[in-house]
């Protein structure tokens, strides 16, 4: 296929948010050719609940399906879950499966996601050291978490903090270790990071600023002993390592595509091979200036790049760029962030942290560049539109909770 021909067959490798989003968007844009999603295991499901409601047991697998079974039939999407992709042959337009069957593909979308980074210390591979990425991981962790279980969580990022909160609910006794004194600083800025981290000890979690250098276990029935860099030790029944993921780039690499800590793509999610696109956690954008972006690992980025890949496959205009957005739920609060909280600039607080809905905005001059909210998602939706629309605001507009941000946006839009 040349880039101008419309494809008659598309194979999506991976049934996470990026893969399903790409499939939905292909059909929405009117693509009516063959469409196959290959992902061995369960029907496609949503991962964010795995550290929260699914782990807690208040949601089950059908609750977290990304699309009901009927959707696949209605949309004429073939879902292959009984085998995996062994190799892609972009020049031949073929996807080779482990069961020796071959799928024809005018276009291939790689949405292969990532794998939890293993704990790089002695004992990091003991059976009682868990990771959390898949439903199977969550099932294993849930089975091991009984009231009174001593859980050591290594890494206080989103997965670590959410799992610590859920485990506490399940009656576990939780210790949370992170090498940063205040984790999540680049993502949420100092004010919210300090507030969020302080929640853990308030709820009864022991927080330790430090690094685990090794984990030992005398016998399979004896407790784990984790040693810190200071020489102190922590006894635990279970460990959860939440120290990030590595991008699954093996298929792309074997096919000779450009890789650099992710499958390199342009703004239409096209890889270095014209027939192959990549989306989600495993993809990494290279701008027209040649500069590589940071690999985004959030749900929203996976959804957006999935849609962009669909548009790319069909030769449509790239999806409009919108500022990055994420959420996290822990200790009964809902946190959202948008844009960039890392640069310097003016900080504006709306509300009071720890007392009802509150939002911290980061301004560069009269422009919002980032915002993080506690239980105030509409402030983030407004902030996202302010960032993307480059709308000029004043600190007073934002800080007064009596000012309706939606009305502010509307009045600015009508002026503009």
């Amino acid at each position, binding site marked *: 296929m040349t880039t101008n021909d419309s494809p008659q067959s598309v194979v999506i490798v991976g049934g996470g948010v990026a893969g399903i989003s790409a499939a939905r968007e292909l059909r929405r844009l009117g693509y009516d050719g063959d469409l196959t999603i290959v992902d061995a295991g369960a029907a496609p499901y949503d991962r964010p609940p795995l550290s929260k409601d699914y782990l807690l047991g208040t949601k089950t697998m059908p609750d977290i399906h990304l699309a009901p079974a009927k959707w696949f039939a209605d949309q004429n999407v073939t879902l292959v879950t009984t085998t995996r992709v062994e190799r892609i042959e972009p020049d031949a337009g073929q996807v080779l499966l482990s069961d020796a069957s071959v799928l024809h593909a005018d276009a291939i979308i790689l949405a292969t996601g990532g794998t939890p980074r293993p704990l790089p210390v002695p004992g990091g591979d003991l059976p009682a050291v868990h990771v959390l990425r898949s439903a199977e991981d969550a099932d294993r962790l849930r089975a091991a978490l009984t009231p009174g279980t001593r859980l050591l969580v290594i890494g206080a990022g989103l997965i670590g903090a959410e799992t610590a909160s859920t485990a506490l609910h399940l009656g576990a006794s939780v210790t949370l270790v992170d090498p940063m004194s205040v984790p999540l600083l680049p993502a949420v800025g100092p004010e919210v990071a300090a507030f969020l981290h302080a929640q853990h000890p308030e709820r009864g979690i022991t927080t330790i600023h430090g690094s685990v250098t090794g984990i030992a276990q005398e016998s399979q029935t004896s407790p784990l002993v984790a040693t810190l860099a200071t020489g102190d030790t922590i006894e635990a029944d279970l460990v959860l390592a939440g120290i990030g993921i590595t991008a699954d780039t093996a298929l792309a690499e074997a096919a000779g595509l450009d890789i650099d800590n992710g499958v390199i793509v342009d703004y239409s999610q096209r890889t270095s091979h014209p027939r192959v696109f990549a989306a989600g956690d495993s993809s990494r954008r290279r701008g027209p200036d040649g500069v590589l972006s940071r690999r985004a690992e959030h749900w929203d980025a996976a959804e957006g790049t999935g849609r962009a890949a669909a548009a790319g496959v069909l030769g449509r205009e790239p999806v409009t760029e919108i500022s990055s957005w994420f959420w996290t739920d822990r200790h009964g609060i809902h946190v959202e962030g948008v844009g960039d909280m890392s640069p310097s600039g003016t900080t504006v607080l709306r509300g009071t942290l720890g007392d009802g809905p509150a939002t911290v905005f980061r301004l560069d001059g009269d422009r919002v560049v980032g915002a993080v909210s506690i239980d105030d998602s509409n402030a983030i939706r407004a902030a996202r539109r302010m960032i993307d629309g480059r709308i000029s605001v004043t600190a007073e507009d934002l800080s007064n909770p009596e000012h309706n941000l939606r009305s502010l946006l*509307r009045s600015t839009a009508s002026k503009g």
Partner: protein
Amino acid sequence: MTTGIKIAEVGDVDDGEGIRIDKAATGTEDDIALFSAAGRYYALNDTCTHEKASLADGWVEDGAVECPLHVGKFCLRTGEVLSMPANESTVAHRVEVQGEDIILYPGETPSEETE
């Protein structure tokens, strides 16, 4: 035809906003989210089909409401689910403006001309 129920008056809902009306007042299976958008009124079951969140608190834009918890989006007119992570549509009810009153017809599918 069901009997209409007065659920609000013109002016109770600002344009681009929603209000929640308790099911005790409407007799519906769920609370009702009443929205005003571009001069029309829309009513949906209030609870997001994805998680326990009130759609009346959601973000209204381009004929859709976005759940305040995640980005599940629903068509204001039909209740159709437009965006993940929600995977199930919600229920839309017909509403009508009669004089100053906003009347809900529970369970009746809204027509194209819904006010």
